[in-house]
């Protein structure tokens, strides 16, 4: 998938990945790649400005934890993040449904 289209929806995708459980940057990008079966393949570093932005917006929380002997910043969804994800998912389904109707699918 073209990276420009993906970047516009990256926030929603990150929230969706973290809805399944907390994770650090590397695990988040890996889970995103796995769940999309390789379709979503951005430069891995792009998750960090998005994660920091979501945390600044109150949609994520983070804390430093030791994982496999190394300090990592673990992100988790807040209540506001869950609400935001639910709303964005609803809007996305409505949008894609409308597109599908126009395309005759």
């Amino acid at each position: 998938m073209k990276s420009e289209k993906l970047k516009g929806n990256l926030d929603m995708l990150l929230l969706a990945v973290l809805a399944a459980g907390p994770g650090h940057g590397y695990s988040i990008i890996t889970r995103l790649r796995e769940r999309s079966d390789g379709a979503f393949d951005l430069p891995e570093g792009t998750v960090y400005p998005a994660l920091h932005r979501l945390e600044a917006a109150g949609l994520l929380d983070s804390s430093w934890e030791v994982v496999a002997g190394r300090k990592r910043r673990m992100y988790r969804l807040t209540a506001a993040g869950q609400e935001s994800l639910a709303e964005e998912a609803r809007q996305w389904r409505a949008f894609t449904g409308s597109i599908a109707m126009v395309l005759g699918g």
Partner: protein
Amino acid sequence: MRFIGWRFGSGASEVHRGVDPAGAPVEEYLDRLLLTLSGSPRQVRHTLAEVEAHLHDAVAEETAAGKSRPEAEAAAVARIGSVCDVTGRRSAFGRPMAALLRRTALAGSLIGGVGLVAVGVSGAIARALAAMRGGSFVTAPFPPGSYTRADCARWLAGNPAAHNCVTAMIADHLGDIALQSYAAGIVGLLALTAYWIMRRRWHDRGTLTALPVGSAEAAGGLLALLVAIGTLGTGINAELVQRGQGAGQQFSLALAAVAAAMFFAIRLYGAVRSRRVDPVPHVAS
């Protein structure tokens, strides 16, 4: 997420021996990232630690997939993308020299601003000296024959209270000195305002860039000291050779330069002292 590198043991054993499995390409990437990141020291430190851990995981995964260490390091750096991808900024200031450019702009606006304000202050000092010792003490009149009747008429028209051409000339020169000095002072205040705004926006501290803490203050203080010595010498020369005519302007500049040097010295002392109390935090490993 399981860390395949640890399971297969290659990365883990090298770490156990104290060898960093990530190697030079990762270190170089982190160096570039450190110079590019902006924000508070804590934000920079945390982002750096996150990316370092990410790269180590990527190297371990690539190594476990069969790549040699150099190949794994290169692959890990390629996977994470450019430093602009991590910082999220696409402007020209996303390049690794951004921090040095920011520090140069900050230093230039601080030194230039203080210097121009000092010039403005020297204008006020020159006014005071002219009041105490006469206008010719501050600015020497032009030599006879070097100006025309038209010049005299212009000076007298601008200074009706003057009794003769030389007095009017000196008054006119004093007015020019004051105007130029005060204009420089206003520009200096604008430069210092720009410095304050940039510093609040960029949050840079000398420890995060190529220049050490207090470098701008040290450079500014040295420059001010040199100006003070130079103008004092010129003023003394005017006092001895020209019987004091024109010495006042040099003395006023020297006094203002000394004040600027003291300002920089106080800031330098404060910067060095705060660094001793609060040393640079180490990046989390």
